[in-house]
């Protein structure tokens, strides 16, 4: 299971990309913003795509009563996520190494992937909750109160994934480099599982 173990280790290590590259990106473009404003969501906090984007997004959101974009210390996620990712990297590497030395079965690779997927889904769920909260919990004294045609108050939750038109803004929400590295890493661990399975069988025979 040498090959599988190496793939498993590489796959796990790809998660380290999240410490450098953003996981997700949300861009806000409008006619008067030919260079769209943007947020890069890192596991350690939210950063503007350009130097003053966060300040300018906050400035715009102020009109409709949205809260300011949280600083890293204002959300527990930015404390916990890096630890979880680091933990999973270490776990993945250890599993990979043990796999190479045939100390454990290829099923552990799948186990890691399932755990990572559960954590990922939880992360997305949490992210979506935050987006919902951010986009709907509006200041009652907001300058502008927009309503839908049916009279219900308009909310401004950015899309979890994909494109959405919000007032005059085109909002695009997609994974970024760190996110793609995460998916690639997870895919590699899946491959490691199948390769390991084959290696396991040939070994047995």
């Amino acid at each position, binding site marked *: 299971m040498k090959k599988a173990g190496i793939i498993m280790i590489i796959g796990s290590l790809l998660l380290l990309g999240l410490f450098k590259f953003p996981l997700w990106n949300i861009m806000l473009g409008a006619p008067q913003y030919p*260079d769209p404003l943007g947020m890069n969501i890192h596991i350690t906090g939210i950063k503007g795509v350009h*130097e*003053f984007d966060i*300040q*300018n997004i906050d*400035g715009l959101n102020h009109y409709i009563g949205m809260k300011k974009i949280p600083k890293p210390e204002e959300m527990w996620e930015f404390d916990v996520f890096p630890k979880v990712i680091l933990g999973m990297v270490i776990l993945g590497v250890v599993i990979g190494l043990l796999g190479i030395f045939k100390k454990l079965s290829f099923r552990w690779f799948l186990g890691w992937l399932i755990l990572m997927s559960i954590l990922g889904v939880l992360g997305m769920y949490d992210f979506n909750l935050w987006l919902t909260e951010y986009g709907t919990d509006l200041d009652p004294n907001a*300058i*502008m109160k927009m309503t839908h045609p049916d009279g219900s108050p308009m909310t401004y939750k950015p899309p979890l994934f994909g494109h959405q038109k919000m007032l005059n803004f085109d909002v695009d929400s997609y994974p970024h480099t760190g996110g793609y590295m995460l998916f690639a890493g997870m895919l590699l661990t899946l491959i490691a599982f199948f390769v390991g399975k084959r290696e396991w069988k040939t070994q047995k025979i």
Partner: protein
Amino acid sequence: MKKSVLFIISLFMSATFISCNNSENSKNGDRGALASSAAEKTYVAPGEHDEFYAFISGGFSGQLSVYGLPSGRLLKVIPVFSQDAEKAWGYNEETKPMLNTSHGFIPWDDAHHPDISQTAGKLDGRWVFINGNNTPRIAKIDLTTFETTEIIEVPNSAGNHSSSFVTENTEYVVAGTRFSVPVPQRDMPINEYKGNFKGALTFISVEPEEGHMDIKFQLMMPGFDYDLAHPGRGKSHGWFFFSTYNTEEANTLMEVNSSQNDKDFIAAVNWKKIEEYVNNGGGNKVPANYAHNIYDEETHTATSTMKKEVLTVDPLEVPGAVFLLPTPKSPHGCDVDPTGEYIIGNGKLSADLTVHSYSKMIDAIENEKFDGDAYGIPILKFEDVLAGTVKQAGLGPLHTEFDGKGNGYTSFFISSEVVKWNVETQEVIDRKPSYYSVGHVMIPGGNSAEPFGKYVVSMNKITKDRYLPTGPEVTHSAQLYDISGEKMELLLDFPTIGEPHYAAGIPADIIKPNSKKIYKLDENKHEHATLSNGDARVERDGNEVHVYMTMIRSHFTPDNIEGIKVGDKVYFHVTNHEQDYDVPHGISMIGANTSELLIMPGQTETFVWEPKQPGVWPFYCTDFCSALHQEMQGYVRVSPADSNIELSWSLGED
């Protein structure tokens, strides 16, 4: 006598003949142009950018305007020598020092000749220099911000006309005096001008990084009038050429008395030689009094320093550095072609263009072929330096620019036309009328080693029937010709600011990428900046009150101020906290004897208000900034001088 009368008559007849021809051509040309592609060639679709920037001086407006070519759209008016209420230039405390001179605060000048900085003879797009004619000054405009960042006054000078032209690596910008004056200035009879007045040709060094200017030396020339100038380039790099008139040294009824000599001079100055002389301790330091004003981008504040000394050089002290090239007849433009070989003298009272040869000049100097001297300065023989003459090209040649393909384009004021001619063969190729009375012409890069010869712009003094009438005062204009083909084609004319005296053009791509979008707040080192809202405050110091205010969409902090008294001098130091492109805010105060402020993102500006009546007086944002711009306002309570209301300020408290 009879002969000359006949000659003049024939000259005017031929000119009339030429211009008749022109007007017919032009009608056809106009029609053809309208029917065909002129509109397409100048059309820049919504949202698209022009190909060139044109910096067109505002002449008597004292400013520099920025146009896009080929559309002719006005993009900005950059305040330089004149107060500009639109931008608070010369009104706010930060820029008032920029207009300081040895004569005090002078909020006007006559801005003539912009020139773009060069590296190795090519436009580098870092700065534009422009001269103030009336109270001699040279200004430098930074092309990252399009703001005037430095102005240096030129002592011993008057009518600073033969400037501001730069050498091929922007080593120097020159400031030649148009009027010769007594140096040092003194009380003396005017009719003793001859032999007593001096003409200062000032070489201002430009520091290569920041562009700071400093007068390196003043060459004290005979008392002629120095009209225009151009640097040598390539092989003639190291030389500077100045056209002269009034070599008669007349002091009255100049139109006649200064036009007697058949030939005036182009003064050829070997500045490298003089620089060497000066670097070796040559020249005389003499007392002077002139202002050097610098605007600091980090403090957003100008400082004015009075300088007390200037280094002068007598041309006779540096043999072999200055020569006079006879040139008919009262030459105006003095233009050097891109190769550096040809120096064109545009005798404005002549029908011919004089083309001097640099190599022939050097040869004549080496062989000492002199034809006398003027105050000890050798005069070269006309025939020995002449490369050729463009015969009967038109009437009143003023200025020549080059297309980089071997052609010159000369403006003719009297016959009101632009003439294309071959620099090598001196043959006229094409002529087109201008509407009307063209002064200078401009080809982007046309006075550099690398012209961008796609368009020529003529700058016209008179417009008469070209636009809707606007009373006795009608706009001046510029005209755009396509020069990409053999024949010129008139594409467009467009109105201009003030008097479009002279211009410099440059491909947009050289400047655009460096254009600054905001000033960073955390780099703001203004003495009175308020970098966080928590620091917004009001302080009293005797009867001076300093308001430290911030602005962001869509409120001021503070917006209620009490405790101001009649007789106070209230300084509003206002910092724009935006960090977003194109979001300036303004502020003005009722009854302030100044202008509004227009503050760019991250900048701090200051104005003074001296309340004269008790009351509650509003201030507001003057630049439409957001949907809540109209709400961006506040109040100042002014109490009688003897009241004891405590100074207080607030935002968001009832």
